[in-house]
């Protein structure tokens, strides 16, 4: 192994390992603060610089939480499968960290690299992204099963069923972009969108983006799809029996997966690092990329503060009866509009196709919504009022 290669590997991976965990710390603070404000509370505001009374709006909270997590007692249940109990949080973190490599983040120091270790240059980067992010399901099953706890197992099974179901609309909505860009290479998809040719600004791209975002919420177990860790039903789901550092690893893995999937959404639909002033300062592309990720994360937090949790049957019906047909219809629509624009170039044809696509999409969604609504009535209580 040459020195060149080692340098390349360090340049490619160390920034990811530094930037995203620190962003994780900031995001936990942001989430707690935003949720508190939504609920008319103040949120963390005490912990700032140690040994002083300077609060810094509670920005020291993540650090304090981290220290607490590390020194907390690590409890392993007596009946647990010790090996799997230990491996699960590690396995939860690794795929999340790995898929970060497939995001086309072009760091300014990229020009010192030979380019052979940059994973997003792989010809099938998008497929690899989905393949590896699917491994998180296994970690969750492992955690749920190894804890030998009913709630853990229930949470784990729920998580597996949910993640397997929502992976299909997720991939199908990404297929539209792959079709239109004509490549599975993340870099090429990003290049196609430069100059505000973002895919989200087309009718099929918009529909695919919405489907993708909703499925991504479910895929990362975010509210309102956080059934696997529904604390009012099954305590904490698959990480009920985890404490201390292992719990912190799960937490970290969940947030890193959130960043990664938001990053993929940014790559596929929101033009990756595209933005204004790039001609003046090319390094801004990383800033735009991360800013867009943060925009999506903010919407996720906002939704978490707004929506109540779904029921299990609603969750499955939504994936299979609403999102799946919608995304397949969207693929048809995208192919059709592409061929129409190729056959009849000109503004009129484009306006007509776009209008037809948007109306068709909306009518389809409306109809599916009507069909897929759960028929379950509200439960009637015998004794309670």
């Amino acid at each position, binding site marked *: 192994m040459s020195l060149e290669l080692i340098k390349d590997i360090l340049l490619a991976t160390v920034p990811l390992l530094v930037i995203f965990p620190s962003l994780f710390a900031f995001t936990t603070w942001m989430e707690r603060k*935003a949720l508190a*404000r*939504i*609920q*008319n*509370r*103040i949120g963390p505001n*005490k912990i700032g610089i140690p040994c002083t*009374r300077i609060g810094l709006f509670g920005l020291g909270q993540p650090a304090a939480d981290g220290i607490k997590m590390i020194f907390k007692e690590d409890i392993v249940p007596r009946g647990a499968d010790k090996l799997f109990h230990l491996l699960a949080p590690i396995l939860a973190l690794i795929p999340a960290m790995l898929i970060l490599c497939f995001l086309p983040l072009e760091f300014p120091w990229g020009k010192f690299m030979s380019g052979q270790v940059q994973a997003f240059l792989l010809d099938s980067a998008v497929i690899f992204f989905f393949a590896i992010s699917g491994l998180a399901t296994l970690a969750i099953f492992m955690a749920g099963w190894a804890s030998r706890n009913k709630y853990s197992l229930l949470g784990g099974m729920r998580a597996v069923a949910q993640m397997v179901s929502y992976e299909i609309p997720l991939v199908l909505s990404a297929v539209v972009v792959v079709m239109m860009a004509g490549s599975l290479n993340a870099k090429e998809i990003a290049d196609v969108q430069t100059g505000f040719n973002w895919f989200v600004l087309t009718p099929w791209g918009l529909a695919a983006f919405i489907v993708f975002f909703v499925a991504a919420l479910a895929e990362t177990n975010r509210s309102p799809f956080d059934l696997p860790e529904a604390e009012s039903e099954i305590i904490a789901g698959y990480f009920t029996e985890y404490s201390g550092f292992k719990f912190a690893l799960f937490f970290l893995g969940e947030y890193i997966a959130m960043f990664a999937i938001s990053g993929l959404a940014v790559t596929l639909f929101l033009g990756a690092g595209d933005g204004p002033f790039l001609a003046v300062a090319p390094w801004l592309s990383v800033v735009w990329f991360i800013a867009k990720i943060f925009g999506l994360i903010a919407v996720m937090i*906002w*939704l978490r*503060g*707004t*929506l109540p949790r779904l029921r299990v049957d609603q969750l499955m019906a939504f994936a299979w009866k609403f999102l799946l047909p919608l995304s397949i219809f969207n693929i048809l629509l995208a192919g059709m509009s592409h061929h129409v624009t190729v056959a009849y170039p000109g503004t009129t044809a484009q306006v007509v196709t776009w209008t037809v696509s948007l109306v068709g999409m*909306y009518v389809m*969604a*409306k109809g599916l*919504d009507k069909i897929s609504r759960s028929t379950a009535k509200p439960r009637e209580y015998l004794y309670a009022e």
Partner: protein
Amino acid sequence: MSILGGGIFKGMAVTLRNFVGSYFSKERFITTNEYSWRPESELPQSIGDYPKEEGEQLSDTTTVNHYSRNFPMLLHDTGEPMDTIRCVACQICERECPPQCIYIEKSTEKKENADGKPQFYPAKFDIDVSVCMSCQICVEVCPFDAIVMNSQFELSTPDRFGGLLVRRDDLLKSNDYYHKIHPQEAATRDERMAADKAAKEAKKKAAAEKAKAAAEAKAAAAEAANESKEDTE
């Protein structure tokens, strides 16, 4: 025909209004306690320096909002706590408690309560802090207004087991203290209790009068009967 997903946007608008509004109007923070730091020199230097007067917990550093509810306490009326305790150990709260954190042992003999009526009293009344979820159901179900919510929140202890069990004598708080921490609620409660008592007394009086009248009537009737009997004889 509503717009698809319109409900979500409506909800998001509501939360956005809350989010922004919380930066501008202090009145929104109805559940928030405000802490104010004292200068270093005035801080208690050791545990023993804590003001340990009844119901006082860092009282001059903390303004506890009167909406605050944290953990139950037992009420007693003015006087010696155990002589004026309102609880009669009926154990309704123990049965209703969802996490089952209340443990009550009924006394074997009766004792006079504040009204001078002989009643049972709790020989033991323990609540586990670590289990209690502050749901306030015990307060709702108590027919004697004996258990209400305290706003004390400094419940942490270095002892994992015994220290988290709050005993009867620590739970007992005076009605005056209740008035101090939850003035509105205490006033309405007292008013209602007085009204109940008045209504009860009026009923009792009425019943007594009725009984008296009935007795008199009966006596009269008996007399009359006697007389008639005598007459027949």
